[in-house]
C-alpha cells in the first residue's frame, strides 16, 4: 500500500483494466485436476490463479502432535517461483508463514474438527499466477477443495478483496491496484452465518470508509458463494450420472 506513484488507477470513473468500481474480475472455478488428492480446485480471479488440494482427514504424524478429542487443520500457502515478476526463491518466508496461518484460521470455523480426532486435514495452496488478491483466491480454492474432499464442513468459506484506489472504494484489487492503492482489505466469510473468518486491512481508512468497504466485500462474497455452489453442484451431478 501507499507506494507513491503518478500512475492513474482510475480514469473517467473506470479502472485501468476497464472495470467498474464495484466490479470483480472474471472468475473461473474448476474442481478436480489433482486426482492424487482427496479433493482439489482451481480458482481464477482474472490473472490470479490458485490451485488447492485437500488431503485427509488422515492420521497425524508424529503421534505426539495428535489431539485426543479433535482433529487439526494444516495449511500451506505457496507461490510458484515463476508466479511473480521477479522470480521468488522457493521455500517459505515470513509472508507465506503468516498467510498460511490466517488462511488456516479462515477455514477453521466451518470444519467439524471434533469429527476426526487424532487426524489432520492438510490443505495446500499453490499460486501459479499472481495478480493481486492471491490469498483470497487461494481461500476459495481451498474451501472448494475441502468440500470436494468430503471434509465435514458446515458451509463453504468465501473470500474476496476490496480496497481504496485513487480515493475510491473498489472491489477485487488486481496487482497494480494492490501495489499503488491506498488501502487493501482481505476478507473471508461464511455467508450462511454472516460470520467473518478472515479480516486483514492495510492502508488508512476512516471507520466509515471501512464499513462501506466491508459491505462491498460482503456483497462480492455472496456472488462468489453462488458460483461455488454451482460448480460443486455440477460436480456432484456429474458424479451421479
Amino acid at each position, binding site marked *: 500500500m501507499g507506494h507513491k506513484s503518478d500512475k492513474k488507477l482510475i480514469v473517467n470513473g473506470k479502472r485501468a483494466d476497464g472495470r467498474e468500481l464495484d466490479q470483480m474480475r472474471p472468475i473461473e472455478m474448476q474442481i478436480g485436476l489433482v486426482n492424487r488428492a482427496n479433493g482439489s480446485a482451481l480458482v481464477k480471479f482474472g490473472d490470479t490463479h490458485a490451485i488447492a488440494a485437500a488431503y485427509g482427514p488422515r492420521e497425524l504424524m508424529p503421534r505426539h502432535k495428535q489431539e485426543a478429542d479433535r482433529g487439526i487443520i494444516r495449511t500451506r500457502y505457496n507461490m510458484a517461483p515463476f508466479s511473480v515478476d521477479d522470480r521468488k526463491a522457493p521455500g517459505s518466508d515470513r*509472508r507465506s508463514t503468516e498467510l498460511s496461518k490466517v488462511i488456516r484460521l479462515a477455514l477453521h470455523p466451518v470444519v467439524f474438527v471434533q469429527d476426526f480426532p487424532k487426524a489432520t486435514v492438510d490443505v495446500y495452496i499453490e499460486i501459479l499466477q499472481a495478480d493481486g488478491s492471491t490469498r483470497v483466491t487461494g481461500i476459495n480454492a481451498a474451501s472448494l477443495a475441502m468440500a470436494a474432499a468430503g471434509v465435514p464442513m458446515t458451509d463453504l468459506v468465501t473470500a474476496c478483496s476490496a480496497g481504496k484506489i485513487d480515493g475510491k472504494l473498489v472491489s477485487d484489487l488486481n496487482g497494480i491496484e494492490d501495489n499503488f492503492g491506498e488501502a487493501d482489505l482481505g476478507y473471508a466469510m461464511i455467508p450462511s452465518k454472516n460470520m467473518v473468518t478472515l*479480516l486483514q486491512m492495510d492502508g*488508512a481508512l476512516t*471507520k466509515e470508509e471501512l464499513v462501506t468497504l466491508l459491505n462491498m466485500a*460482503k456483497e462480492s462474497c455472496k456472488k462468489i458463494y453462488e458460483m461455488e455452489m454451482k460448480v460443486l453442484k455440477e460436480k456432484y451431478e456429474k458424479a451421479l450420472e
Partner: protein
Amino acid sequence: MRERYAYELIQKGMRIDERKFDEFRKIKIRTDVSNKAEGSAHVTLGETQVIAGVKLKTGEPYPDTPNEGTLIVNAEFTPLASPDFESGPPGEDAVELARVVDRGLRESHCLDLEKLCITPKEKVWTVFVDLHMINHQGNLLDASALAAITALHNSQVPKIEEDTIIRGEYVSKLPVVFTPVNVTVGKIEDKFILDPLIEEENILDSKLSVSVRDDDKICALQKMGEQGINFDDLEKMFDMAIKKSKELRKLVK
C-alpha cells in the same frame, strides 16, 4: 482451572483481576532501556513485559522507492518469556505479531521515510525495530506495538563520517510524524474485552487487532482466533478500539 474461572466471571460481566471489559491493565513505559540501541522502550502491561529496541544501519533502498529509508520489524518470542515458547527460528505467532506491528507502523506512515535517505538510489537508513518478549501474561501484540512506537519516538539518527557510522553520536531525532496505537478486541460469545490476560486469551473465540492513527484512521486490521466474528459486531469493535487508542496514545512520549 484459571481459564474456566475466567470464563465464568466474564459471563457475569467480571474479570479475574477485577477490571472492566474495556479497561487495560496498568501500563508502565520506560525509555532508553538499552544504551546500545538508537532508541528503546520497555512496556509493562500488568505483568506482561516487552522491550523494543531500534537500531539503524545503512543499506540500499528498494528499487521502487529510491529516495526512502526502509523499516523492518522483527519479533523474538524468547523462551525466557513463557514456558510455551521454544528456542529456534520464529514460529508463526512471532512472525504474525511482527508483521501486524509492521503494518501498523508502515501504513500509518508514522516515519517520514524520505528523511531517511542518505544518497538517492544508493544509500538509505534501514530502521530495525526488534521486539523482545520478556514475560508473557497476555496481549503481547498491543504491548509490542506500544513499545515499538515509543522506541521510535525516542530514537536518534547516528552521525556518519566518511561512510562510517559514528556510534554514540547522533545528528537528529528519528522523523516520527504519527503515533499509531494498537488495540486488540477480544470476543467471547457475545462479550467484548480489551487487553486480555493470558487465561482470557486462551478462551477467546476470536480477536480483532485494530491499529489506529492520531486522526482516528484505521491503518491495519488483523482477525485472529479459531472462530468467526459476526459481521454486525465489527463496527462495535472498531469503536472500542478507536476510543481506547486515544487513551493509550497519551502514554507515548
